[in-house]
């Protein structure tokens, strides 16, 4: 009923290949976007921005970057956090060396550096595959974090070894640093994330995305039908690292405000990998769903006992939280091993057929 597709005729290839061939999808997305762009900024508190919306969006973006590499091109990577670090440090160096630079431009440019580093570490993927490649990306993870610690120029010879985001403004409005308001930062994050999501959707639907998928499904077959594997794999590394690098810059500049090298260590890589796997490899929507489950849900669960007036100690809440989120992850993986995105796809399919399932 809600998802009735009857009467939606396509009379040209262009219409058939549109981003939303089914009208209800577009309406649903429109509602979500209206909520994110208009309703939420008017109603939500700073707490919601700082602990739910901004981190969910940034983590979803990072997972999207990883998903392009792992989900679409089939190259398993364990170095996501290090590439985020490259983006963050590049952005920090740019805004401190060139304070006149527009911070949003700096964030978007910082991805270029991580794309370069990503391609360099992607070269082994031409010869090695699967778990062996994962080990090679693990080398990137350890090497880059070590570099962030030892190369003092990166953090401007700061005694504490950490980078601290300065106050940055665009036309007199602070967008980064302690003076920036949460709503402004939220809009910047939402804008950049929306832009890159649109880019990723179209890239994965297009020619490049198809060569990635062919590489993922069987690289020898892909080579036989004329796909240049080197180009396919290295573009996947470049695009993926670009997106991850931008998310790293956002992570530090729009949310954390300060970062020490070990922030970009392997636990962060795993966290992003979990978001991508639980959300669904090879999907864009999955990254958002995964980020909501892994990043957003613990925050909501943590506020529940206090809101309901249940007297439990905060340490107990934390223990319960870990148990509940852990079992939910197992639950979702059992009912749908292909991730939350696939779960939504099944629900949507059922809705389209409803009330006449076959």
């Amino acid at each position, binding site marked *: 009923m809600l998802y009735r597709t009857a009467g939606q005729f396509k009379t040209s290839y262009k219409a058939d290949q549109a981003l939303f061939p089914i009208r209800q999808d577009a309406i649903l997305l429109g509602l979500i976007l209206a909520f994110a762009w208009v309703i939420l900024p008017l109603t939500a508190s700073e707490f919601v921005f*700082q*602990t739910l919306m901004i*981190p969910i969006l940034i983590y979803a973006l990072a997972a999207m970057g990883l998903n392009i590499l792992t989900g679409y091109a089939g190259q398993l990577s364990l170095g996501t956090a290090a590439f985020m670090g490259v983006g963050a440090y590049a952005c920090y160096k740019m805004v401190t060396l060139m304070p006149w630079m527009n911070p949003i431009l700096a964030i978007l440019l910082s991805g270029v550096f991580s794309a370069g580093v990503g391609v360099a570490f992607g070269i082994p993927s031409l010869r090695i595959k699967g778990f062996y490649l994962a080990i090679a990306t693990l080398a990137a993870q350890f090497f880059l974090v070590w570099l962030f610690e030892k190369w003092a120029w990166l953090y401007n010879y700061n005694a504490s070894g950490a980078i601290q985001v300065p106050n940055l403004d665009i036309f007199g409005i602070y967008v980064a640093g302690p*003076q920036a308001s949460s709503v402004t930062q939220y809009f910047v994050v939402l804008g950049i994330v929306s832009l890159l999501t649109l880019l990723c959707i179209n890239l994965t639907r297009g020619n490049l995305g198809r060569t990635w998928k062919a590489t993922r499904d069987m690289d020898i077959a892909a080579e036989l039908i004329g796909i240049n594997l080197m180009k396919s794999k290295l573009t996947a590394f470049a695009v993926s690292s670009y997106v991850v690098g931008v998310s790293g810059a956002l992570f530090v500049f729009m949310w954390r405000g300060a970062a*020490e090298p070990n922030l970009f260590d392997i636990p962060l890589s795993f966290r992003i990998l979990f978001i991508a796997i639980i959300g669904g490899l090879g999907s864009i929507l999955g990254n958002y769903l995964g980020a909501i489950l892994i990043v957003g849900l613990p925050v909501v669960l943590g506020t529940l006992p206090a809101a309901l007036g249940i007297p439990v100690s905060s340490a107990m809440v*934390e223990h319960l939280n870990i148990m509940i989120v852990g079992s939910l992850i197992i639950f979702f993986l059992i009912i749908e091993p292909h991730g939350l995105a696939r779960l939504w796809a099944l629900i949507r399919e059922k809705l389209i057929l409803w009330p006449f399932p076959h």
Partner: protein
Amino acid sequence: MKHVTKLAIAAVVAGFTASAAMAQELYTPNLSYRTGPFAATGIPLMNGQADYMTMLNARDGGIGGVMVNFDECETGYSTEKGAECYEKTKDKALVTQPWSTGITLQVLPKTNIDEIPILAPGYGFSPMMDGKTFQWAFNTPAGYWDAADMIVQYLEGMESLDGKKIAFLHLDHPYGKEPIPLFEQMAADKGFDLVPIPVGLKEMQNQSAQWLQIRRERPDYVVMWGWGAMNAGAITEAVKTKFPMENMLGVWWAGHDADLRIVGEDGKGYKSISWSFPNPDAPVMADIKTHVVDTGKTQSNAEEMSGVFYSRGIIISAILAEGIRVAQEHTGNAEITAADLRWGLENIDMTEERIAELGLDGMVPPFKTSCSDHTGKSGGWMLEWDGEKFVKVSDHLTPNTDAYTDLVAAKAKEYADANAPWPVNEDCGM
């Protein structure tokens, strides 16, 4: 996504309205870490802090007649959770107790905007002692640079350091790097050789490479800036390599009883500088026993309560309570605001008499804060492990802060410039 955020909004709104309906109270949240890799060191500190406030509530009905709501928000020592806790509590909190250098660094720039004092006793950013620049941050009663100065003073008290070699074993983290600028300055002044040896976060438990280097370098002393699992790792490694324990000294966070109990007798002679000391005979301990332990309100146990860290927790809460009391007396209002508390923390005068009045005899050295001095220069004592517990082996040491006021001013200015516009306290004439 819609659903989750709505739920969150509802939860937050419900939380705020519920608390607004409550009676008047002093809300002093603590960003505790009773879970995670650092829990072993966190729990005694958190218990000490909580028990002192519970005792005040039970014995005196709070501070100035207003009950203290000493809420805990669990961070697990994670910076991410810490920032979340800060956002969660900041609307009505009088104070932020961030409890990790990472969280402190994160919260510090926000304090000028949110105007909530940070109380970071004995940790955080050393230049925070410059109260003019860091109006809202307090590392009362002593900072890391004070610790470094006192350790060097203590060593100099025994013999000249000229030509000696000191290995500086530290956590490769903002916390461990904090005293390096001062050590370098002192090495140049006093003619000793400084060998910094970093311990990565991943190597905390296995420090064989670092101790191999120590054996090769043959330092006269090892000064340790460790935390969590690193301390136990270093102490056991030192025992294993037969490094003379009496030549190994640590900062106050490296003086945890449980870390030394692992090696017991072999750890004899290990020293740690400290601005707090457990005194089981102090009146405050008796009060905690009657009002908290006997009524079953504590999470602690007898062994933990005799340790250095538990008593440090008590001192931290006592500093906060004293700040609140001073603020109440100054404003004549029992229900103070965060700005009042800042005034209170800037005007603490812990004299020997006041320490005795509070029943903290021998547990903390006297100190006095002002608008320009947010540390208070308490100084401290050198504690030594006698095989079973820590005992005082020095008189009251006071840091020679004049030697590094220039360094403090330079670093504070550097921070303020990097975070421009950074408002400083212009009214402070001291």
